[in-house]
């Protein structure tokens, strides 16, 4: 690990789906780009990745880069460690972020900054790319911080 990650080493590492569905997303994050799905027929934004457009039932889903910003839709601060890597680590903050520029789809990430910071629903946040270059299959997580 880079030693500069929000959560400790040993957390589950993401890998692309074996069926190839979300390879563009994970390749995009390696280049600090946020790629999400949009239907090429009806223009509906869709997240998480799916083969079919839920609005017009087209298989013609395309990957588009979207803006690195969103709004906090909900949040939580887990205290109880549900994974061995989190034992003794203490609380951490998770935000559900909606992306107004991509049809209000929602993504999950950690909220960077002090763990006891007040979290206000509706606050603007921006994406921060957290590279895990030393992982067996290198990957990048998309974290969030409140826009100053």
């Amino acid at each position: 690990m880079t030693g500069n990650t929000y959560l400790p080493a040993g957390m589950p590492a993401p890998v692309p789906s074996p069926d190839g569905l979300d390879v563009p997303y994970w390749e995009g994050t390696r280049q600090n780009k946020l790629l999400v799905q949009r239907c090429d027929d009806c223009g509906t934004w869709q997240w998480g990745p799916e083969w079919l457009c839920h609005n017009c039932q087209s298989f013609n889903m395309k990957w588009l880069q979207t803006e690195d910003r969103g709004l906090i839709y909900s949040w939580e601060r887990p205290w109880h460690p549900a994974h061995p890597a989190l034992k003794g680590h203490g609380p951490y903050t998770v935000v559900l972020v909606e992306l107004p520029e991509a049809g209000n789809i929602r993504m999950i990430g950690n909220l960077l900054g002090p763990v006891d910071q007040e979290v206000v629903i509706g606050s603007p946040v921006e994406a921060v790319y957290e590279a895990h270059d030393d992982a067996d299959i290198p990957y990048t997580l998309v974290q969030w911080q409140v826009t100053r």
Partner: protein
Amino acid sequence: MTTRSIKGKAAVVGIGETTYYKHGQSPDSEFVLALQSILKAAEDAGIDLREIDGFTSYSNDRNDPSRLAAAIGIHDLKFSNMHWGGGGGGVAAAVANAAAAIASGFADCVVVFRALAQGQFRRFGEALPDPTVSGDPAYMRPYGVMSPAQNYAMRATRFMHDHDVRNDVLRAIAMASYQHAQNNPRAIMQGKPLDAQKYDDSRWIVEPVNRLFDCCQENDGAAALIMVSAERARDMKQTPAYLVGAAQGSDHRCGAPVMNSSNFASSSFSTVAERLYESAGVTAKDIDVVQSYENFTTGVMMAVVEHGFCAPEEANDFFTLDNLTCAKGSMPLNTSGGNLAECYMHGMGLQLEAVRQIRGTSCNQVAGARLAMNIAGPMVTPVSSLVMGSEETLS
């Protein structure tokens, strides 16, 4: 009333449960626990075990009907049914599926059961140890969202934000379960009362909505009930608890990945509750007692609201200890102690308690209870709920 209704077609005539244990403390294996609960239910119903000809369950119960039928010695197994979906969202659907099998003539005597030995198998509250994850979990677990509490807190946080619901509501739900458990000899938490101070002092599991006492227990045990046709039920040993109505499902894109359901701040019952009332031909005002699955108190709060017992804006006034307990409440809730304080039998214990209320044999009997609602595990998908009633509710 539509002729397609399940109303009054089948009834629960037997209930049984094992001793309830803290997780990991059962001396018996999960399969033995399942058998024990079924034997007890058959004895309660006054039937020969070999009359059983069908099984329904939910949440991928590990004890499959063929093995159960072989163990019991059933000559003609006619119906085996597993309701899809994790969590306890399917417990009411499993009862409804048994009734549907009876009403349609597929089987005559169906067991609904759930067995759990979390000591023998993995605990629900601990994440899988997989070093890598793909699909939906790849967008959640690397960020520390991996246990049920962590998966569902976001929904409640948003709901409580939207409707200005205070955490006192959650405390009242937890305290109601614990208060009822003090009168219940089956309850693991009998003799361990919960007061406001103890709740407020308890540690956060997931801030800002789940303290320790907002979360269900994890237990070992099994519970079962037996259903037959309404005609046959009338001649049997116990007062029948008829299925009055049932519904299952979830609303638009409820299962969309990475928390992208359209109606996110929800217990998943917004469309199901409406269909339940249509099916039962009753309204929330007619219901005498409610058993509502507590995975977390947050889910109970949203599920009760979505079943129309109060508006979201009324939640702070509606969810008080007095209003939720059997002595003077307008909506007595979880009268056995439920998943929080009786036993986490994945909601099956709450089904048995609804039957006791209709029979008039609960440890916390609601005087004159005729209609009992049972709401299965909230916030998962698909979810389910049902109404059971006494003979007089069918006319």
